């Protein structure tokens, strides 16, 4: 089965991001395909490259990146939700005259059209919300 994940919860604020990551691993371990994780609402904070949790806690941001590297899962971030919350890549930082950027590949800023497409393309789109 083809799966997609929609994540609406910020890392560490609620169980949403943890659960989504465990679910992602379980889907792949179960022999299914996970096309993409779409980060929306406060879920965009999962794409923050500056995230530095205590060492004895799971590093959720790195966890997503590993998922991409190991299994090619796309990491799509809603651009409108991200910009509002101070998350932007180099291109957007230049466009908005900011000194640094807070999102880097493999996370990619994209539009809601991508989410609609993901939902219609996959057999299951599973939402994780706070």
């Amino acid at each position, binding site marked *: 089965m083809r799966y997609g994940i929609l994540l609406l919860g910020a890392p560490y604020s609620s169980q949403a991001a943890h659960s989504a990551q465990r679910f992602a691993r379980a889907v792949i371990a179960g022999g299914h395909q996970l096309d993409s994780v779409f980060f929306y609402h406060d879920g965009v904070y999962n794409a923050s490259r500056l995230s530095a949790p205590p060492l004895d806690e799971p590093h959720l941001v790195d966890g997503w990146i590993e998922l991409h590297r190991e299994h090619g899962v796309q990491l799509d971030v809603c651009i409108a939700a991200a910009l509002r919350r101070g998350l932007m890549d180099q291109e957007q930082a230049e466009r908005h005259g900011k000194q640094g950027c807070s999102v880097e590949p493999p996370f990619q800023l994209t539009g809601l*059209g991508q*989410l609609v497409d993901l939902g219609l393309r996959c057999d299951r789109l599973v939402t994780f919300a706070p």
Partner: protein
Amino acid sequence: MNSDHINGVSSDPLPPAGDLLVIISHGPHGSSLLREGLDMALVAAAFGRRVSLLFMGQGCWALHPGQGAGALGQKGAHATLAMLEMYDIDQLMVEAAGFEQLGLEVADCQLPISVVDNVTVQAVVTSHQLVMNF
């Protein structure tokens, strides 16, 4: 998918069908969920998808006219609601129970809508390929 069954009238035995159903169940102020739900509907419609909207519970307040900016300085959603027709989103439904609870009436609503009962809500959910909750 019952893609051939497109009907906007609630009394019709066939529920509206389509690619995407956006369910709004949060009130218009206090969070960005209404705006995000409407954005989702407009984007999908702009990409040529057939979109329906269902307002439930507190989400029914979105249809009540005369709302200005909220306490958080969020813009009212009326301008966006008015755009729905331009994007060919004409399947607008409200859940009867939510409507009744809030003391709202169809005549009060900003847009033409169909009132649907619980049974129809279930049918509407299954007649859309993708359902998004806001």
